[in-house]
């Protein structure tokens, strides 16, 4: 696994952000996190060239102001940002949503799990960690 990973979490739900970070820290406590509580803030932070680019972006869909979908569009339009893998991380289980967003450039569509343990497994796959290790 890569050293000094930074994950950018865009989610208006604070609980979800905390749960996600807690689980991620279990996978690797050295992971750094940047958070934004809506799409507008996310776009602003990402476009600021002073902030170092994250390695992964986890993007919620339903957020006030700029939605995850619009945010994804902005990221894909930006030459500097478009190579960063974007994971849609949402409550939605809608298959058509999933297909559309992948077309728009998202690398994966993840439904938020009910069991917090599942976040750990998902992340370990995402971060190229082998299943059952650790």
């Amino acid at each position, binding site marked *: 696994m890569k050293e000094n990973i930074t994950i950018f979490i865009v989610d208006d739900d604070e609980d979800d952000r905390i749960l996600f970070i807690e689980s991620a820290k279990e996978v690797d406590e050295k992971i750094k996190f940047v958070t934004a509580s809506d799409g507008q803030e996310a776009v602003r932070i990402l476009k600021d060239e002073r902030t170092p680019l994250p390695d992964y972006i986890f993007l919620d869909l*339903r957020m006030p102001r700029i939605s995850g979908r619009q945010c994804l569009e902005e990221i894909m339009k930006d030459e500097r940002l478009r190579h960063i893998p974007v994971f849609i991380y949402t409550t*939605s289980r809608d298959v058509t949503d999933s297909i559309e967003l992948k077309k728009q450039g998202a690398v994966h569509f993840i439904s938020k799990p*009910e069991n*917090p*343990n599942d976040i750990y497994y998902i992340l370990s796959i995402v971060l190229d960690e082998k299943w059952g290790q650790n």
Partner: protein
Amino acid sequence: MATATSEDMLSEVEDLKFHLSEALEAIDAIKTGSVDAFAIRKDGKPEVFTLQSLDYSYRVLIERFGEGALNVTQEGLIIYCNSYFSTLIDTPNEKVIGSYIFDLISSETREKFNEHFMLAIQGGSKTEITLSVNNKIIPVYISLCSLQPQLPTVGMIVTDLSEKKNNERRIIDYQHRLQVHNKIFNLAEEIAGIGSYQWNLQTGELIYSDNLFRMLGYLPQEFVPSIGKHLSFIHPKDKEQLNQTIVEAFENKSPLQLTYRIVSKDREVKYFRITEKIIDEPGQKMIIGTTQDVTSDIIHMEALKKKNSELEYLNKSLDQFASIASHDLQEPLRKIRTFTMLLKQRFDGALNVDASGLIDKIKGSSERMSLLIHDVLNFSRIVHTESGFMKTDLNQILDNTLADFDLLILEKGASIRKGNLPAIESIPLQINQLFHNLVGNALKFSKNGIPPALTISSRILPPEEIGNTSNLNRQLLYSEIAFEDNGIGFEQQFAEQIFSIFERLNCQQQYSGTGMGLALCRKIVLQHQGGIRAEAKENGGATFYVLLPLTQSADI
């Protein structure tokens, strides 16, 4: 030059006298008819003049021309009749001659004939009478003239009017029929609530039917229609549109159909739908049109439109609700489950048994709530599926469904018997859901300790049974698929209730589920123009009858 002697002159006088007396004699003879021919010497040769040759052509003319000709004495005795006349009255010539003219005249016109005959003796007369011969009435026109002083008789020319009279009668007959047709037409227009008009483009004359007057609030033929008057009925806001449409139709020579508003005599606004046709034939150039009062149709249509948009709004609200339900309601629910799980994981050792049990109850309830929301969503989505009908082999769908339950069937030791099912036009996914729910119920609601037995069979529904079930489309063929189980059954009084949303007859502890399965089943069959009903059996067990049409429309 020789000088004539007195004897010579005397002898010439004698000679001339003789010639004169001869000539006078000849004239007398001709007058009295006692001479048929005479000879005149010319250049020493005699030349014969036959009187017949002068008169013959007239006789032939009279004999052959296409009118009857008679010569009648002043007493009415027929002394000559031509062949035309004898043919006309269908009596041989020799029988006509010698009979009295009065006997040939019909009693109705005899007096009239007598008057004209008297006039004719003094000069001439013409009139129309009818002949009556051998019970046959022949209308004729007669022309009479006295042949005096040469002959003491009356000449009579008879023109057959039968054909003319027949034509006249036919015309009257036609007119009569036309009047009847007009009456029927007027009545029909009144009953059907339509009016009609004809506009003669050559004369400019405009004719309204009686009912058109009524539709405009007038009495039949109360005024003389004109184009100006006609246009004055049209609602001011519709005039321009109407003009444009008429011009287009005129240019394209196409039949015109349009709806516009008129303002009647009582200032009432009505919707008229007119259909116009231009007749452009030699000698006839006109526009004919019918007018239908469609005011109530339009009012209904607008009400329907309003209802439709209301419905659309409601559907949108439902969509919104569905979206809220799927995300916003699921969101906190997911959190409850997540945090109870965390609570249990992190404080497992620190909690006593009671607390642990309570946490389990929170977990169970929130899981159930999640399931409910999921099912409600499913239920509302069924309504929105409009298309997707395709030929579906129900056997295959049933096999797939049974495969889904493989484990449960094995676990419960269930026996399944299935008959042959038809192929129907359906939305396969929905039928899959339907079968899934019915088979699932049969397995779920089994009696304790008795392995479930499910029999699935089908038959084509006889037409008389289609009539017995409401909501079915009588133009379609239906298949009835029966799911018969040996489970706990239900009380027959609840047979209808079980299909209502959230209706459960059994306690949740024993039989899990949201109580939406059968409601969903009913929704699916309704979507397919079908029906579903349940029958409880005496010794427990239930049979669910699903009625599905083989095709969705009759013309396939």
